[in-house]
């Protein structure tokens, strides 16, 4: 008896002093024991982590204990196949993540039904080689996918936190309050606001912050979805719900641009909403309030009421100019966090310009402008000259008269089109005018007349063959007089005057916008 007590004391002392976290799970995956090293690693008291259930999922959760317990869960097959190794880890509250190699050993008791699982975790984080996407651990493909998914979900969740909704204006404060209410209630929420104002970001923030939600989120773009696609998305939702585990798992269905949903899809969605699956949270974004649309008969009232229990209104940037400075600074710091270059912010003149700009594209446009400015900024502070030309031009346009618009010259456009068509057809047909005429649907005589009228010379034999897919011979080198191409395919060829082809050739649809962004 005394020998047994002595062994227990030795074991207790060993477990208390080892730097390796050790914990014990029962067959229901409830954490029955953990040593001090595990408490140190997780930052949780033994009283908080013990008796937590470790479910095997990768969801992002606002509840710290559930999130960490999920990170400690062994692969489910451990009770079937015996001892194995795997990665355990979790995201800390500061956004950083930790991952360690763990050895899981199933222990069978005297009672055959009862079993325990001993987990011994490495004392240091798993090392990664540069370029490796994941630490190399000899586990199954499914376990590797699970580990990577957990990391990716954590990283994604870290981007959508309440602290990211910055602003000191009354509108921004009201937004945060509304979001807090939405998070606490768990009721269906519709976020209304202009496009580009960050509606989806707010919706995802609510999803991440809801304490009971550790499932995924399934977005549906209502502006383009049809009945078949909606059904596929709902199937994915059911699958995500079954993957997330037992309740209180919550999977969110995020309906983007709800006000643009077709009537057929509204009917289908209404049928689904009438008998929703347990554990599904409904979030939606809209340019116009569905309730307001329903009042005018432009949206199904029952669906609007079911989805808009709480309406969160997103303010426009132009209505909160003071927040623009904070948001611009936040965006610069997000860039700092991503890259190696570190910038302190903007000079006051640049901030004034950003605050005065009307931002028709809302937050999306601000993000784009700040990213471009940061990319072009040579120093540590973004100046006015680093801002995109469109913003600077807008600033200058405030102080000068709008120039006259340049008219389109119809005859020039038609002549140019004729020239391009004939030249391309000749090139494709290897200067065979009869074939070119046939290709263009012209008589040969008319083609010759047009060639003469337009003053076209026969294309050189080394004409660009890229367009000539029917050519039998090998492709000769590309010439500089190739037809104007879509700017997407390859860089414009320089001309003899030092201009690019697109610059040398007038673009007849290009209209001076008078310095305003379109």
């Amino acid at each position, binding site marked *: 008896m005394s020998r047994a007590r002595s062994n227990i004391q030795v074991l207790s002392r060993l477990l208390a002093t080892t730097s390796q976290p050790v914990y014990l799970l029962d067959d229901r995956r409830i954490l029955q024991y953990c040593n001090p090293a595990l408490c140190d690693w997780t930052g949780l008291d033994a009283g908080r982590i013990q008796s937590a259930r470790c479910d095997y999922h990768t969801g992002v959760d606002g509840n710290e204990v559930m999130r960490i317990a999920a990170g400690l869960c062994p692969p489910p097959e451990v009770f079937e196949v015996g001892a194995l190794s795997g990665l355990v880890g979790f995201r800390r509250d500061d956004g950083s993540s930790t991952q360690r190699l763990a050895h899981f050993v199933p222990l069978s008791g005297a009672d055959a039904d009862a079993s325990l699982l001993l987990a011994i975790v490495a004392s240091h984080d798993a090392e990664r080689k540069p370029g490796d996407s994941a630490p190399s651990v000899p586990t199954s493909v499914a376990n590797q996918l699970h580990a990577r998914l957990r990391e*990716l979900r954590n990283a994604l969740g870290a981007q959508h936190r309440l602290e990211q909704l910055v602003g000191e204006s009354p509108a921004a404060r009201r937004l945060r309050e509304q979001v807090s209410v939405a998070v606490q209630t768990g009721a269906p929420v519709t976020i209304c606001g202009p496009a580009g104002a960050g509606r989806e970001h707010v919706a995802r923030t609510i999803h991440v912050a809801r304490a009971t939600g550790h499932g995924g989120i399934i*977005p549906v773009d209502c502006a383009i979805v049809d009945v078949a696609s909606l059904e*596929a998305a709902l199937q994915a939702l059911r699958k995500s719900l079954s993957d997330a585990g037992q309740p209180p798992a919550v999977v969110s269905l995020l309906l983007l641009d709800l006000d643009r949903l077709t009537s057929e899809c509204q009917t289908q969605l209404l049928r689904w909403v009438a008998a929703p699956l347990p554990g599904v949270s409904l979030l939606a974004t809209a340019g116009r309030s569905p309730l307001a649309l329903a009042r005018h008969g432009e949206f199904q009232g029952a669906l609007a009421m079911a989805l808009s229990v709480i309406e969160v209104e997103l303010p426009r940037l132009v209505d909160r100019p003071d927040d623009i400075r904070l948001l611009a600074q936040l965006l610069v710091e997000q860039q700092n966090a991503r890259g190696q270059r570190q910038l302190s912010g903007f000079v006051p003149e640049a901030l004034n310009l950003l605050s005065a700009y009307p931002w028709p594209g809302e937050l999306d446009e601000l993000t784009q402008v700040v990213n471009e400015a940061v990319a072009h900024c040579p120093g540590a502070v973004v100046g006015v000259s680093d801002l995109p030309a469109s913003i600077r031009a807008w600033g200058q346009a405030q102080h000068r008269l709008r120039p006259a618009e340049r008219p389109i010259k119809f005859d020039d456009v038609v002549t140019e*089109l004729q020239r391009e068509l004939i030249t391309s057809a000749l090139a494709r047909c290897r200067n065979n005018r009869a074939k070119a005429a046939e290709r263009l649907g012209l008589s040969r005589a008319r083609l010759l007349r047009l060639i003469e009228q337009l003053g076209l010379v026969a294309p050189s034999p080394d004409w660009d063959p890229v367009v000539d897919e029917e050519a039998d011979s090998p492709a000769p080198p590309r010439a500089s007089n190739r037809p104007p*191409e879509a700017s*997407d*395919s390859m860089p414009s060829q320089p001309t003899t005057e030092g201009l690019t082809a697109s610059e040398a050739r007038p*673009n007849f649809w290009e209209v001076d916008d008078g310095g305003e962004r379109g």
Partner: protein
Amino acid sequence: MAEARARLLIWERHGIWSRAWRSASTPTACRVHELRGAVEVEPLLETARASFIAIECDLANWESRCHAALKWARDYGQVRFAMLACPELVPLEPWFREIGAVDVALELRDLGRVARLAQRHLSRYRPADLSPVQRCLERWGWLPEFKPDHERTEWNS
């Protein structure tokens, strides 16, 4: 903000999905730009910020593809993307949707559904900013087709 332009981009290795896409599309459907790597996609997004990207992925490259898709969705707010996944990635379908994929095709017969989504998305935006002459040439398929470069190293794979 300048009006967004849109293109239909398919990023895949071997052209199988592109061929199927073309055959599933009507003659008036948008032109398919077949691309072999992220380095080819980026410049096109710069000039067509509301493009629809269909991204092929398999067990070896799904993660890098997800990172690229997330980055584009972040940098180009109007971009929409769909995943063209191999059957082994069925468990990841909810995840692909979670990061913003409007649809996930797990086999070729799902392609029609994705193509319809793409067509509806692209119809919301003007086509790429071409001159009238280029627009006419493209309408008749006379502009140089994209020639996917198999020699290029694929980004992150």
